[in-house]
């Protein structure tokens, strides 16, 4: 605070610097609590106890919502270590994450940047890019079933352009099924996140780009040398969102493949669903939930650290 403001005391007394700072801090704290309390209270009411509950149940053996629980300490976690399905699930989830993030974020950013240039027709493009997100998961499943069937649209298209050698039983072939599911995510994700990037980028001042152009930079350079660094935090956020959504995601596996064929699409998220709803091992499923929870925390911290180091 400038010296002149310091002399504006709330009371008539002239306070010392230290006293003023203390009262100020107190007042700030009061305002802070007043502003934060509703949101925090709302959140804790619904999430805190159930979260603790999740940790508690992960230490039990529990088979059905109305059956008794049996306390078994950390047995569930020991079981995770020895579980052969864990290795498979980790491998599949890892692949999904790698392809799902690298296949979405860079392209979403580039498309978002292009949209933010507001060239003619950008509004229509923006609406189109966003529309997959408006389809419910069940509708998407129906669409992609129609695409991936042995006599579905994809194979028919490939045959019609003479590439019938490339036709596959996409959902039945262990080599292609995981990629087929990831493709659904990428298809919708690029459009969705590109609109988000648009919203973030469009707020950058015009003068920024103009100055760069006068200095001799083209759009490509501007995109990577100016927009990208400024957006690093937001990009980090998008990566976190994609990461968490893929980590616990199971919708397409449930609707289209059931984790198969064999174990080709058996991921961590599906494993949790399977143990909770299909195999009736609620305790173990919560242990998996706890594990996913910690993986998520580590991921968030890492991604944040990377983006902050990158921007400095």
């Amino acid at each position, binding site marked *: 605070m400038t010296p002149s403001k310091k002399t504006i005391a709330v009371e008539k007394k002239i306070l010392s610097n230290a006293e003023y700072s203390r009262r100020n801090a107190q007042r700030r704290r009061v305002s802070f609590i007043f502003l934060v309390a509703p949101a925090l209270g709302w959140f804790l009411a619904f999430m805190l106890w159930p979260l603790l509950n999740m940790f508690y149940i992960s230490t039990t053996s529990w088979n059905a919502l109305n059956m008794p629980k049996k306390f078994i300490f950390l047995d569930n976690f020991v079981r995770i270590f020895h579980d052969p399905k864990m290795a498979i699930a980790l491998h599949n989830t890892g692949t999904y994450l790698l392809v799902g993030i690298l296949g979405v974020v860079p392209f979403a950013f580039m498309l978002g940047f292009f949209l933010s240039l507001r060239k003619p027709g950008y509004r229509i493009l923006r609406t189109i890019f966003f529309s997959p997100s408006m389809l419910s998961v069940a509708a998407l499943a129906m669409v992609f079933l129609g695409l991936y069937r042995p006599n579905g649209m994809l194979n028919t298209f490939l045959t019609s352009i003479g590439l019938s050698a490339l036709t596959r039983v996409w959902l039945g072939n262990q080599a292609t099924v995981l990629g087929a599911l990831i493709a659904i995510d990428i298809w919708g994700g690029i459009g969705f996140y590109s609109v988000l990037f648009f919203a973030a980028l*469009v707020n950058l001042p015009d003068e920024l780009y103009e100055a760069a152009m006068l200095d001799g930079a083209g759009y490509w350079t501007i995109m990577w040398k100016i927009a990208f660094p400024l957006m690093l935090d937001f990009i980090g956020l998008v990566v976190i969102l994609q990461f968490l959504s893929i980590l616990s995601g199971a919708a397409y596996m449930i609707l289209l493949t059931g984790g198969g064929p064999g174990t080709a699409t058996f991921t961590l998220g599906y494993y*949790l669903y399977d143990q909770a709803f299909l195999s009736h091992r609620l305790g173990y499923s919560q242990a998996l939930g706890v594990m996913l929870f910690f993986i998520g925390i580590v991921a968030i911290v890492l991604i944040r650290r990377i983006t902050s180091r990158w921007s400095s």
Partner: protein
Amino acid sequence: MLNRVLRVPKKIKKGSDLFVMGGYFFSILYAALIIIPLYFVIVSAFKNNTQIISTPLALPAALSFQKFFQAQENVNVLRAGLITIGITIGAEFLTLVLAFPAAYAVARIPTRLGTLVETIFSIGFLIPGLAILMPIYMMTAKAGLLYHPIALVILYPAFSLPLTMIILTGFLRKLPRELEESAVMDGGNLLQIIFYIFFPLSMPGIITILVLNFINIWNEYLFALILMDSNNRTIQLALALLRANQRAVDYGLIAAGVLISMLPVFIIFIFFQDKIMSGMLAGAVKE
């Protein structure tokens, strides 16, 4: 950008033109990849199963709206859609009212409590929904709100708060420090400052979370299933009923249901898109 008249060197202009052309090319290509499946859904709503499977992309033989009427009759898709929209609007509004002042506090009021609060919200991010199903059900039943959509309007903000807080705090942090000082000089209490100055300036962040939260609420199935009854179905419950009521699936029926459910969403998106974007641009103009 280049809409203004600038004396930009020819080589740069050409490179930028190339970029724009490339941008259009890939955008249109991607747009086509999106439109084709959507087109598939649209025409399927007018066909029967055999036509859908054997000639998926052919135009329908006749424009019979029979499937639409049937979808409406079977599970009352329109009502489900309206209920869901009502829930979405209510929950989004509540989330914003709760989160914006809190985000301001965390981002702009320098106290140590700030980091603690931020961490608490971030953890909420990672809780799988299944874990909290039972306790929330009991709470709703005890409050006498079972089977009433208000229950979801109250519940969903709790799910949206973590993400909303993270994004809004991020945006609010970026705004210049001088804003508070000039506002204090103009007079006005804290709430007025927050609402009249910071709110319009954070439009990009607000739009972002409105959009993200909308998706999550629209697609939410588990809690809607458990907390609602057959009179107050949300759109996802209604669509699921179209599909699972019969093992022999009528794809045309599902397509019709999907289209009916998308229509209000589309309209709202297009209508508000213009209003919000123009508000955003106005907010971006420096005072």
